[in-house]
């Protein structure tokens, strides 16, 4: 497991770089490497936008199935309405509103745990097809 603190713009580059090289190491093809790295970027930005800081835990899953798991955790204001946040084009930050729904489409598994005032925890997994 690798843990990366998310605090500023440079965190975006650092998370992308570490996730990309792990995805490559695990054996994902170029398209999946790009999907996973893009999701890492989207979810890191979400933390910077909404919570200002947080961290990500990156796991190399190597059991009966092989995959890459990322857990993005922050202690920010949380998500008022998860259903609304998952709608394409919905944004409260002036962004595109693509971050969460887009990330869900790019990964195999996607879970959000959040409540107002309680921060947010977003877990995503991509499985290696084999």
């Amino acid at each position: 497991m690798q843990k990366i603190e998310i605090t500023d713009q440079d965190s975006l580059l650092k998370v992308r770089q570490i996730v990309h090289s792990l995805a490559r190491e695990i054996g994902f093809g170029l398209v999946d490497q790009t999907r996973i790295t893009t999701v890492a970027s989207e979810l890191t930005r979400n933390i910077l936008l909404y919570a200002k800081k947080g961290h990500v835990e990156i796991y190399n899953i190597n059991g009966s199935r092989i995959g890459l798991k990322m857990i993005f955790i922050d202690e920010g204001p949380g998500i008022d309405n998860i259903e609304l946040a998952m709608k394409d084009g919905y944004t409260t930050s002036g962004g595109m509103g693509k971050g969460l729904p887009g990330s869900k489409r790019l990964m195999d598994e996607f879970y959000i745990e959040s409540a107002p005032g309680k921060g947010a925890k977003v877990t995503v997994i991509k499985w290696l097809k084999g």
Partner: protein
Amino acid sequence: MAKIPILKLGSTLLVSIQTELHDRLASELQEEILASIEKNKSKAVIIDITALEIVDSFIGRMLTNTAEMAALMDAEVILVGISPAVAITLVELGMELKGVKTALDLESALEIINDNLSEENDADFFSSDPKSDDERDEN
């Protein structure tokens, strides 16, 4: 801070992004491109993203906005170097970069620009290519 050079080729600007962009850098690049269009009275901007590992929603939006802003300044943006992986990811993410002109490589981008210039200059356009009369696209 990494600088991204903006090269001038006649009335065209060439921007080859050779470093990964975080959001602040992407926003600064957008401003610099627009300032260069004004300063050089450029008609076209080729943005080469071959070296970018990913194009996420922020960078995608920056590229789309830059194209729209350039159009308001009477210049067109042509995006070059979108890899299959980036194209797939952008569409799945829900970012089709609508309204942004793309070309597969630098050469095709320059062809688009030359065609536009020759259409604009209603005068005879002399091509150095002797075959061009037969092969020139009617559109």
